[in-house]
């Protein structure tokens, strides 16, 4: 085999790309993972500012499951990647909360708490909620008939009180819906399980040790990780089938099996193929991290996660202004049980943003706009939990512009295209989608995406 020919090439060293790479290497394929940036991780990465390390995406690892739950997604991916549960050093969440106006529902990794909370706030819905939970437990979200079925409609089939439907939709949309004012029904089932029935945890040390573990596994299996080596173009033959890639550096690598985590529209653009407007993601975020002088709980921010909305009918859509501060998520990384002593409290606030309001700004205007909205986000959150501002040691904030720069996702759409391709079809022969636009989100979802697409390809090829 010539030096520039591979059995498989993977675009993007995020969770899905590394997982696909590990599996392909395990199957004995010659595989390279190509990453444009110096660091791996993609949407879930890490960076340093003023000597302090920040995680860019991680609020929580959902899908928490102990080793005895062998069929749980987390345990399945650990077996596939041959990682040990203990290697992750997972610390479980304390208590989290959904706030919809004056309505409050607490939840933890003990599902009984959430059942009690729902029964207390919605006594008339008790039986119907139990029916919903039974339906979710019985459903196999991985054998989806119609990926575009509405999650909102699915919840309304089981429940009558629209407040309860909205309360459930709040975390489900925030943790993985690319679709405005809704969430795909199969995704709603996966997210409900991963958040409420399984639970939340944080890997010891945040995202970096987990990413390092994946990179180490990939290299142990003989895979080649090429950082600072982005893909400028996917090369296609005259029949339109991919035969390799041209790198940013100008070099070419050849393969007739390409996995791309770049996104549906973005991957097709690399092939020179256009896509419809409806395939483009519209939802982006502004996220601020406030490093606190004291533990979060000591200033009154006791929840691990807080999903908040000032209205009982929150909007899950591209806001009319640069940022919609009326709803969001507050994640306090130091409110996980862990054997790790965090040096400071950390409050992370995420709100919906309109990417177009952050494009093409003069640097000084951009910085001013960012500081103003960051301040408003803190003020909004202070209505539902402690105000981080009097206790702040350091601030780092990212916008849709930052997301575009580091992930290449058009519009800074973290959850990608609203139309998922569960079969990984990019519409270009030999190019397979993995990651967000294949339809699985979150750390565990992205790993599962890479694994299952690589497995499928390995079976087909053998």
């Amino acid at each position, binding site marked *: 085999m010539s030096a520039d020919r591979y059995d498989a090439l993977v675009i993007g060293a995020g969770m899905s790309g590394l997982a696909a790479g590990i599996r392909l290497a*395990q199957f*004995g394929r010659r595989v390279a993972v190509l990453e444009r940036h110096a660091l791996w991780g993609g949407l879930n990465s890490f960076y340093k500012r003023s000597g302090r390390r920040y995680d860019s995406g991680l609020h929580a690892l959902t899908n928490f499951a102990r080793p005895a739950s*062998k*069929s749980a997604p987390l345990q*399945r991916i650990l*077996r596939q990647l041959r990682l040990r549960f203990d290697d992750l050093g997972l610390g479980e969440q304390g208590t989290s909360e959904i706030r919809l106006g004056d309505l409050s529902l607490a939840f933890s990794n003990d599902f009984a708490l959430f059942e009690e909370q729902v029964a207390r706030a919605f006594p008339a819905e008790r039986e119907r909620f139990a029916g919903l939970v039974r339906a979710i437990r019985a459903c196999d979200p991985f054998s989806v008939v119609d990926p575009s079925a509405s999650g909102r409609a699915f919840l309304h089939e089981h429940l009558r009180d629209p407040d309860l439907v909205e309360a459930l939709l709040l975390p489900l949309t925030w943790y993985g819906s690319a679709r405005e004012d809704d969430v795909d029904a199969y995704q709603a089932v996966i997210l409900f399980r991963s958040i409420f029935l399984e639970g939340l945890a944080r890997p010891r040390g945040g995202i970096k040790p987990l990413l390092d573990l994946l990179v180490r596994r990939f290299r142990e299996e003989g895979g080649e990780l090429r950082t600072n080596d982005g893909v400028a173009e996917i090369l296609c033959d005259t029949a339109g089938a991919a035969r390799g890639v041209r790198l940013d550096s100008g070099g070419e690598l050849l393969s007739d099996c390409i996995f791309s985590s770049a996104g549906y529209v973005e991957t097709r653009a690399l092939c020179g193929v256009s896509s419809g407007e409806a395939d483009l993601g519209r939802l982006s975020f502004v996220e601020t991290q406030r490093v606190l002088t004291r533990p979060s709980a000591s200033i009154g921010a006791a929840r691990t996660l807080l999903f908040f909305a000032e209205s009982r009918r929150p909007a899950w859509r591209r806001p009319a202004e640069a940022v919609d501060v009326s709803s969001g998520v507050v994640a306090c990384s130091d409110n996980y049980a862990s054997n790790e002593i965090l040096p400071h409290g950390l409050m992370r606030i995420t709100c919906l943003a309109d990417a177009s309001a952050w494009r093409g700004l003069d640097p000084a205007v951009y910085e001013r706009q960012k500081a103003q909205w960051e301040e408003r986000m803190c003020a909004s959150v202070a209505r539902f939990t402690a105000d981080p501002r009097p206790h702040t040691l350091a601030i780092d904030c990212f916008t849709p512009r930052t997301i575009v720069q580091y992930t290449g996702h058009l519009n800074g759409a973290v959850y990608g295209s609203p139309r998922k391709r569960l079969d990984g079809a990019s519409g270009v022969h030999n190019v397979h989608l993995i990651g967000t636009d294949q339809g699985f989100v979150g750390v565990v979802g992205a790993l599962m995406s890479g694994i*299952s697409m690589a497995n499928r390809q390995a079976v087909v090829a053998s």
Partner: protein
Amino acid sequence: MNREEIILAIQDIIKTIAPDEDVSNLKTDVRLREQIELDSMDFLDIVMELRKRYGVQVPEEDYKELATLDGCVTYLAPRLAGKSLKVGV
């Protein structure tokens, strides 16, 4: 490899994939997936390890032949003839 060695080979592969499983008491005539929690993704790894360790290619249409340990012996005996057992890889 004889019958006992083929069974040892499969048991050792399962131990690699799922270290927590007790493989010593597996019945040879009962489907593996009924005795231990192996899903289709784990099953793929048995096939993968057979190729890696012994150079045996099992095409997808033959996966069903490996459902039980007895099935593994019948299917693999001619393919593993003259090869030696590798455990603890």
